[in-house]
């Protein structure tokens, strides 16, 4: 057995296209997942029982079911149910937005609950409404504490997006499968793709560790 990376390198642009799509799905899922997560967290914290119950169910459901099952459901089942034309990209973005929002919701909730009760009282006492308290006083402090957990979850999301290859979205994993078949060089292709993921994720986690250290130095506690 000998390594031969030439065939892989010749079609490297295929992999780069896949990487781009991986980042695209991750980015879009973050774009929708974070606000949705905040909405779920605020709903779950609401004193309105029905609302907090529904939000709690959504969060727990998407945290306890496997993402691949969710993806299959949105890709194969949803189009029959509501008559939409489902593309792999839409299915991927919908699945990972909702799936990650369930996890972000718990991070937001933890962050909000970690803020001292006195902050609510101080804000309330000068006449702020609930919304003003959240926006001006609680969330700005909570978000700072959430950053490490938030980045960790984003990294998990990036890793989970490999599942989209199973519904034929041309992400890095999918391109790897294609290239492996085309070149008959699975060892080299999958090793290189693993290396690309490693570099990407390793750099991101090093960055997040650095940020965490800075936050720790500035005396801010963090939540997980």
């Amino acid at each position, binding site marked *: 057995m000998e390594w031969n990376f030439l065939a892989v390198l010749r079609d490297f642009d295929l992999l780069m296209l896949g990487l781009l799509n991986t980042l695209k799905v991750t980015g879009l899922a973050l774009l929708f997942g974070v606000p949705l997560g905040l909405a779920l967290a605020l709903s779950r914290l609401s004193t309105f029982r029905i609302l907090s119950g529904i939000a709690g169910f959504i969060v727990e459901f998407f945290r306890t079911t496997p993402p691949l099952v969710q993806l299959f459901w949105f890709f194969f089942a949803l189009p029959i149910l509501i008559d939409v034309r489902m593309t792999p990209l839409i299915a991927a973005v919908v699945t990972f937005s909702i799936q990650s929002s369930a996890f972000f919701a718990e991070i937001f909730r933890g962050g909000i609950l970690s803020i001292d009760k006195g*902050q609510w009282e101080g804000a309330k*006492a*000068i006449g702020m409404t609930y919304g003003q308290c959240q926006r001006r006083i609680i969330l700005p402090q909570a978000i700072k504490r959430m950053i490490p957990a938030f980045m960790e979850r984003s990294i998990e999301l990036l890793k989970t997006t490999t599942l989209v290859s199973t519904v034929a979205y041309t992400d890095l994993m999918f391109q790897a499968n294609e290239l492996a078949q085309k070149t008959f060089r699975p060892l080299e292709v999958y090793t290189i793709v693993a290396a690309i993921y490693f570099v990407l994720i390793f750099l991101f986690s090093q960055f997040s560790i650095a940020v965490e250290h800075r936050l720790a130095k500035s005396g801010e506690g963090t939540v997980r």
Partner: protein
Amino acid sequence: MSEILRIENLHKSFGDLEVLKGIDLAVQAGETVVLLGSSGSGKSTMLRCLNFMETPTEGKIHLNGELIGTERGGRMRYREAELCALRARIGMVFQHFNLFPHMTVLENVMEGQVIVLGRGKPEAQDKAMAQLDRVGLAEKAAEYPARLSGGQKQRVAIARALAMDPEVMLFDEVTSALDPELVGEVLKTIRQLAEDGMTMLCVTHELGFAYHVANRVLFLHEGTILEQGEPQSILKAPATDRMSEFLEGHSLFKLPD
């Protein structure tokens, strides 16, 4: 003098525990009322009911002649917007300051003016600087609260409340969390406010402050006002055994003869 605050038959329960068992009180404009009582007597709860940090279980509160809330079906109902507007008119200072750590001192004092009262930033800044000057902390405007001493934090909290131009100020054990040497500066600030004619209700353990600054002292016991009167008489000659015991427990302060 005109009546600014009137409380009728105020009750407050937490679950099965009845903390306030019918409080009646009228406060005149410019009056300084000190609330005394041992822990669990309900004095803090009473104060917190006045700006609806706690919602009373029963009873009515009037501010400047207006009844707060509307009566429906024999019970008082309160709307969130109405309570927010009310809290903007009543200043409150807490034991643990509750300053916003992510904002500078100046931003802390501007926040309510801009967000709640809708004042323009230049006006809010002028007001904030004036109030910081009043509590002697104008030069700390650009600092973050974490860099201030406890006494300074509490004076900023007072400035933050004053910047809202409140009609009444509530002080909830504002010196209890301070190192002894820092208590004086805060009490001096509050005393100055009293002399400027601010209407104030203070929950405190500082009997000296009560003696020298209050117009009236209330002694709460088990959710009712057990006795009240001018500090010079009530602190020297309490009518009830309960209050005598309470005063003996706070004998650190020697009353002037």
